[in-house]
């Protein structure tokens, strides 16, 4: 077991006081971010990214990924206690979590949520530990055409499988790819789409766009809502924790089902939101007593939380192994890797062993520490919600501005952030999804380079994308996924034609 030895090495890298301290700081900040309205996992990571610029990459990624775990845990607190999902993926948790809290079983619901989050991530991390090295060593054989085909597959699956209107996904994606191309062309050195502006010469930084799109726009959206809330902050006693854990084996089917759904949707760009709903619905469908769902059933907390965390964690698998993020937050972590001078992709496993295995080990450790931390400190974090939003909102704005400025030390980026904030607000309200935009912006130049290198290699012959079995399969799959809704409808139509004929 080579992976196991390397993992132990990863733990050795981690077990220093400094790293453990950073881990705690990251988790606390993350829970904070998850609990507060108007902030969330991607924003938290994006805003706090500048803090890590002067750290070594391993400490930096440990802290950032812990912010991410913390945010995942934090979302559950508000959805159960106040019926306010801090994150979209916690919506399904409110269905049964909040009724449980109203019945005075808040501690039970919280324990269930945290424990199942822990289980979900653990399954996903195990998957990463053993699958990521295999995928990356396989991907080492990839040349530019294969990489372009994989990028194409990612983009096409977003369009084909996304639930939003197709043209809106296409708009979001092509806009992201276009903005990624602004500035100096990496192959020829020529300037593109700068319109003579010296500020645009640097290009549009991915992180600046993300801070605006997620941070600023989220505050604008939050202000539209009624911000009143009412609930109880329950402390969790050891007795409750033990009694919930004792019952855990009874729900192993639900936990396993949700973990599998979560891992699958995390690796493919389905995302934690879809995973949590699917986990909940399937648990309900397979239950003998469907009526009791939505009225405070503990399985209704287990199912979505496990799936959401499994998905949020496994989204890091394609990022580590192939350099393709499976979620918005993974895309931001990928942006971080590039800032620290690491090139995400299969070579990472060879050139930066310490880093990769340190990160994977931190996923194990971060989840254990996180579980203990949230179980003991729920009332403190719940009372953060007492801080009026009028105090929180300007602080978030300042943090966003610091984050945007620090990336390239440019005042122009603060204005750019503000612009993206407005764009994000409008896009979210008219249903243009932001995830494809983020993904396109971070992958844009790599996809273009891969395309142009393969074109140069083949002398401009498009057949290079079908030149061998591997690349041909991926490209064909991409095109099938792109037209999946049409194909699906065609199949359904054929089936409808055939069936009456039989009858």
């Amino acid at each position, binding site marked *: 077991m080579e992976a196991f030895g390397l993992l132990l090495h990863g733990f050795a890298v981690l077990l220093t006081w400094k790293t453990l301290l950073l881990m705690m700081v990251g988790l606390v900040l993350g829970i904070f971010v998850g609990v507060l309205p108007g902030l969330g996992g991607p924003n938290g990571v994006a805003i706090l990214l*500048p*803090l890590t*610029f*002067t750290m070594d990459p391993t400490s930096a990624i440990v802290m950032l990924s812990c912010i991410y775990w913390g945010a995942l845990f934090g979302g559950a607190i508000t959805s159960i*206690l106040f019926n306010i999902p801090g994150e979209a993926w916690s919506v399904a948790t409110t269905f049964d979590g909040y009724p449980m809290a109203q019945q005075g079983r808040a*501690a039970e619901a919280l324990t269930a949520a945290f424990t199942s989050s822990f289980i979900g991530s653990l399954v996903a991390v195990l998957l990463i530990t053993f699958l990521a090295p295999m995928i990356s060593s396989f991907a080492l054989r990839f040349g530019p055409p294969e990489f372009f085909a994989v990028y194409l597959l990612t983009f096409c699956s977003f369009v084909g499988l996304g639930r939003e209107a197709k*043209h*809106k996904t*296409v*708009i979001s994606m*092509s*806009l992201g*790819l*276009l903005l990624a*191309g602004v500035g100096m*062309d990496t*192959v*020829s050195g020529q300037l*593109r789409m700068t319109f003579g502006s010296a500020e645009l010469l640097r290009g549009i930084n991915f992180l600046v766009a993300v801070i605006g799109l997620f941070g*600023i726009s989220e*505050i*604008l959206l939050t*202000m*539209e809502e*009624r*911000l*009143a*809330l*009412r*609930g*109880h*902050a*329950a*402390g969790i006693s050891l007795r409750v924790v033990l009694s919930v854990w004792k019952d855990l084996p009874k729900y192993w089917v639900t936990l396993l089902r949700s973990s599998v759904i979560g891992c699958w949707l995390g690796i493919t760009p389905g995302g934690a939101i879809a995973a949590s709903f699917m986990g909940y619905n399937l648990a309900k469908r397979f239950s003998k007593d469907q009526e009791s769902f939505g009225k405070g059933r503990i399985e209704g907390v287990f199912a979505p939380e496990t799936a959401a965390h499994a998905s949020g964690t496994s989204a890091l698998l394609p990022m580590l192994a192939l350099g393709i993020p499976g979620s918005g937050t993974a895309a931001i972590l990928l942006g971080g890797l590039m800032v620290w001078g690491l090139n995400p992709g299969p070579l990472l496993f060879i050139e930066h062993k310490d880093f990769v295995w340190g990160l994977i080990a931190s996923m194990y450790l971060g989840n254990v520490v996180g579980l203990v931390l949230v179980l003991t400190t729920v*009332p403190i974090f719940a009372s953060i*919600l007492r801080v009026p*939003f*009028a*105090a929180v*909102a*300007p602080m978030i*704005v*300042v*943090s966003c*501005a*610091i984050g945007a*400025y*620090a990336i390239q*030390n440019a005042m122009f980026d*603060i*204005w750019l952030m503000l612009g993206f*904030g407005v764009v994000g*607000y*409008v*896009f979210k*309200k*008219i249903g243009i999804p932001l995830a494809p935009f983020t993904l396109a912006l971070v992958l844009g130049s790599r996809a273009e380079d891969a395309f*142009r290198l393969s*074109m*140069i290699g083949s002398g401009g012959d498009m057949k290079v994308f079908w030149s061998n079995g591997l690349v041909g399969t991926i490209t064909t799959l991409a095109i099938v996924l792109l037209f999946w809704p049409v194909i699906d409808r065609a199949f359904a139509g054929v089936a409808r034609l055939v069936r009456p004929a039989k009858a």
Partner: protein
Amino acid sequence: MSNTELEIVVDDPTAPEENSPAVVSTGTVDIIVSLLLLALALVLGWDNWRTGASWDSTGPQPGYFPFYLSVILGAASLYGLGAAFMSRREAGETFVTRAQFRRVLAVFVPTFLFCLATQYLGLYVASFLLIAGFMRLVGKIALWKSLLTAFVFTAAMFVTFDIAFDVIMPKGPLEAAFGY
């Protein structure tokens, strides 16, 4: 368990009213955004055509990839424009009500002023002004609390970024007076 519970109640006195009239409908915004995106696609497409969007001896020219992306963006926006005109159902939906819009502006305008102030006064002074002003004027929080919170937060940011982590922020005349 009830002895460990503490009740948390937060009110929102300035919450937007439910029955506030709509400022603009979703359909209209959809059309405006589609038109803007179409214009952007045309401008970018033209710029890339000028840069060179064809093939030369070494492969695709720099404008090739973005040119075709502009074409895709333009086509998708045209489709969106058509879809927005066709669908009567969505067109009636409210994009934002007047009360909501007022609250959104209550955040957006201070944020804009904050960016402007950062440009001339430096980030820390602007941050102090934004937090204190926003808490006092929008949140109606007591003046001393607003000033204290703003000062503590700004000072904490200064110590964290400029001193501890060496991440240098834009500064203005005030910091210059203290020799930073």
